[in-house]
């Protein structure tokens, strides 16, 4: 998922791996995680008030099966539920998958290919309608009808998905999703075992929506959900408002706890500088946007107690279009990898205490990550700085010198500053670079669509769940590349069948040998960067949340970051 346009993705947990491991061995109900265990304790005395969140721009469509932004995924935690959910607590336990609208974790049979759920009874959507198994079936079909960004990479393993991908409008997932209204059972059949399937059902794409939800992107029209809050209005130029869902009753605090504010407003249109000032003055509660680097000194000295810093498994990177000049030339991509000073990019983000330079696709500490650095001054496994002379020589040798290159970035201060730096570097190694800042509202989809002929862009990827495939398969496999589509998450357009086969091998191995699989993922990472270099990985950031002095109960999920609905308005 990227952050500014704020997309993010989340993948496999150790818990989910054990689910499938158990399932493959013997058909048993999964007990990897359940709703028992840690959860938030509701304190009614802190309920009430209006929480005011600030974002410079809206995050695009409000449709939870289409939107892929951190900005709204944070809000979806309080508004939508899937059959499963990530546990809503702080710390490492937030990676656990727990039953949500399902009464328990699925029973997995048929060698890991059949998942059987029982739907909870009596849960209602925010429009008063009761959730039924028909809604579950329709929601899974809808993933294909609305061209979900990951329909082709995550949900394509459901039986019938091939036909749905070919003809989304008539998608039935015949044989893939079988429901029984009498028993409230939902059976999902996969074409092959997938250790990450439970995680994929637990992210917002797996939200259960009314069967009557439109079979197209709902855009600015809110779709009823089952969470503690419901979207009541959305004007992308002004404000997004959430109010309490009057039909909501807590069925599992671990999956969907009660929230505290009576109303949550996300207000758009302010500059980040103004947002920071408002939070300093207590006029608003939280800033979504990356904090401007010139305010960080002030914040870290005067408002240190209101800053919350958390490490992330994420990467800021420059995807280069491998199908478009000059970056359809490997030497040109190599050159930029040598030329970019990652430490300089770190400085633009706020300094070495807030980010670390990276050379790999998989961030440090992530499953499969191996320390290496191919494009570096000198040799070594750590980053030592740029090699401009080598970069210039490569550009000259590639025959691409003098070409025009446009860099597409979002128009917030940090992204634009990094974009200007990249522009300067491109000019210094022999290109004629221009900068194209776009609103965060549109940039992420714009850079994905091959029709826009984007040569290079600045993007971010925040794990959907901690599995190497979430970076490598999603972002750099042929399955993630859809020419002409706004949802072509493989922005670099890198497609290598041999690498794809190796990814498939790693995925299969992850069922029986996660460590062995991670070694293969590490090799894939090195192989992609070493032989193709479709990205320039820049740095892995930390998350900084700045809340006002009138805001309490900050809770951070490693999965979905700050829990908006758990904040207290003092």
């Amino acid at each position: 998922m990227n952050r500014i346009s704020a997309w993010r993705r989340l993948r496999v947990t150790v818990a989910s791996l054990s689910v499938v491991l158990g399932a493959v061995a013997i058909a048993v109900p999964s007990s990897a995680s359940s709703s028992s265990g840690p959860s938030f304790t509701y304190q009614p005395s802190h309920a009430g008030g209006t929480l005011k969140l600030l974002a410079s721009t809206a995050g695009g469509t409000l449709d939870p099966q289409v939107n892929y932004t951190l900005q709204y995924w944070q809000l979806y935690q309080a508004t939508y539920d899937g059959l499963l959910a990530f546990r809503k607590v702080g710390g490492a336990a937030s990676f656990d998958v727990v039953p949500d609208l399902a009464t328990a974790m699925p029973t997995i049979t048929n060698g890991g290919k059949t998942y059987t759920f029982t739907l909870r009874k009596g849960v209602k959507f925010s429009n008063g309608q009761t959730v039924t198994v028909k809604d579950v079936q329709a929601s899974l079909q809808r993933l294909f009808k609305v061209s979900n960004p990951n329909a082709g990479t995550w949900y394509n393993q459901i039986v019938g998905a091939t036909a749905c991908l070919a003809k989304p409008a008539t998608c039935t997932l015949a044989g893939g999703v079988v429901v029984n209204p009498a028993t409230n059972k939902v059976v999902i059949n996969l074409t092959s075992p997938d250790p990450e399937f439970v995680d994929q059902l637990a992210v917002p794409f797996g939200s259960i929506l009314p069967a009557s939800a439109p079979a197209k992107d709902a855009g600015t029209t809110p779709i009823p959900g089952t969470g503690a809050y419901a979207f009541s209005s959305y004007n992308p130029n002004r404000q997004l408002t959430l109010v309490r869902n009057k039909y909501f009753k807590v069925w599992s605090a671990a999956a969907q706890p009660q929230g505290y504010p009576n109303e949550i407003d996300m207000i758009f249109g302010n500059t980040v500088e103004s947002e920071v000032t408002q939070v300093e003055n207590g006029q608003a509660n939280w800033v979504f946007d990356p904090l401007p680097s010139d305010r960080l000194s002030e914040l870290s000295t005067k408002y240190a107690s209101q800053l919350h810093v958390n490490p992330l498994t994420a990467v800021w990177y420059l995807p280069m279009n491998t199908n478009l000049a000059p970056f359809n030339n490997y030497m040109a991509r190599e050159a930029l990898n040598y030329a970019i000073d990652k430490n300089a990019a770190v400085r633009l983000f706020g300094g070495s205490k807030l980010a670390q330079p990276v050379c790999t696709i998989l961030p440090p500490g992530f499953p499969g990550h191996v320390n290496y650095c191919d494009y570096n001054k000198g040799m070594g496994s750590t980053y030592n700085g740029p090699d401009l002379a080598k970069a210039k020589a490569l550009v000259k040798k590639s025959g691409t010198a003098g070409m025009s290159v446009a860099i597409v970035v979002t128009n917030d201060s940090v992204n634009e500053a990094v974009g200007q730096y990249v522009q300067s570097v491109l000019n210094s190694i022999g290109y004629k670079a221009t900068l194209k800042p776009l609103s965060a509202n549109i940039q992420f989809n714009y850079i994905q669509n091959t029709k826009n002929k984007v040569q290079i862009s600045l993007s971010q990827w925040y794990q959907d769940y901690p599995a190497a495939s979430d970076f490598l398969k999603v972002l750099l496999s042929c399955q993630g590349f859809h020419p002409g589509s706004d949802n072509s998450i493989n922005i670099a357009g890198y497609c290598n069948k041999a690498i794809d086969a190796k990814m498939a091998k790693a995925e299969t191995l992850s069922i029986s040998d996660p460590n062995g699989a991670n070694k293969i993922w590490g090799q894939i990472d090195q192989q992609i960067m070493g032989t193709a270099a479709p990205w320039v990985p820049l740095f892995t950031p930390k998350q900084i949340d700045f809340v006002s002095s009138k805001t309490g109960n900050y809770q951070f999920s490693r999965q979905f970051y700050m829990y908006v609905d758990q904040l207290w308005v003092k």
Partner: protein
Amino acid sequence: MAGLVVLMFVVAICLLAPVYAHSVAHVNPFSSNLQGTTMINGKRVQVLQSNTQGLGFGVTPIGPTWNLQHYFLGADNQGRDVFARLLYGGRNSLLIGSASALLCCLVAAILGIAAGYFGGPIDWVLSRIFDIVWAFPIYLLAISLSVVLLTTGLNVGPLHVGPGSLLLPIFIIAAVFVPYVARPLRGIVLSLRQREFIQAAVGSGASDLRILWKEILPNVAPSIIVFFPLMVAFDMLTESALSFLSIGVQPPAASWGTIINDGLGLLYTRPWVALAPGIMIVITAVSLNILGDGARDAFDPKAKLRGSI
């Protein structure tokens, strides 16, 4: 006179930008310098300084050193010398302002005189075109044209102007202001057309071209001269506005508008980045206004044309 002196001073120091950048400050104002260093009080310091207080987050560019050799007005968030960019930015702002004003006055003079002199269908067509352009709020029209042309560039027949070219803002700004000059000129010519000396020239069999060149133009020229400095000021302000909105001069090139935009993110820590170009715009616009008033008093003391920014 005071206006002219100040204007000439601003023009002179802006023209010296390359001398300052290369021979005095020894900086490249168009290249990021995020890891660069400079000397302050005999000590070598980083141009972008890491915060060492509190939690230690943040990197801040150095502020004004008031030393011409070392970041006189400090650095921007890319570590570039603000003073050097200010001078280069002035070159672009003044170039765009004066070139677009010249183009605007030239086109407006041709169209305004043609409409006023020939009248009839020519006047009707040209006047309706002026009306249509005039109907749009001027900044809205300039912004719309800039957004479109910045993406595709300008390609009309053999004319190809790239998206990053300075010619784009020149053409756009000139185009949107044409009716503002052409309309009053048309009125002046309409009035002149009825005067005895023009009727006499027509009666004596003089050609239209001769009448336009020998009789009309000399009488319209003072008004054009009065308009010119005012239009330079108008156009320079428009350019600054467009560049501030990132749809005028494109980075890494600078104009006073782009520098204000760069400084917007540094207002709290390094206000001089935004203040300095703002002050330069005010000084230049006021001096052009005074110059325009002086020109009007000199060439056309009874003129009804009054303009100021």
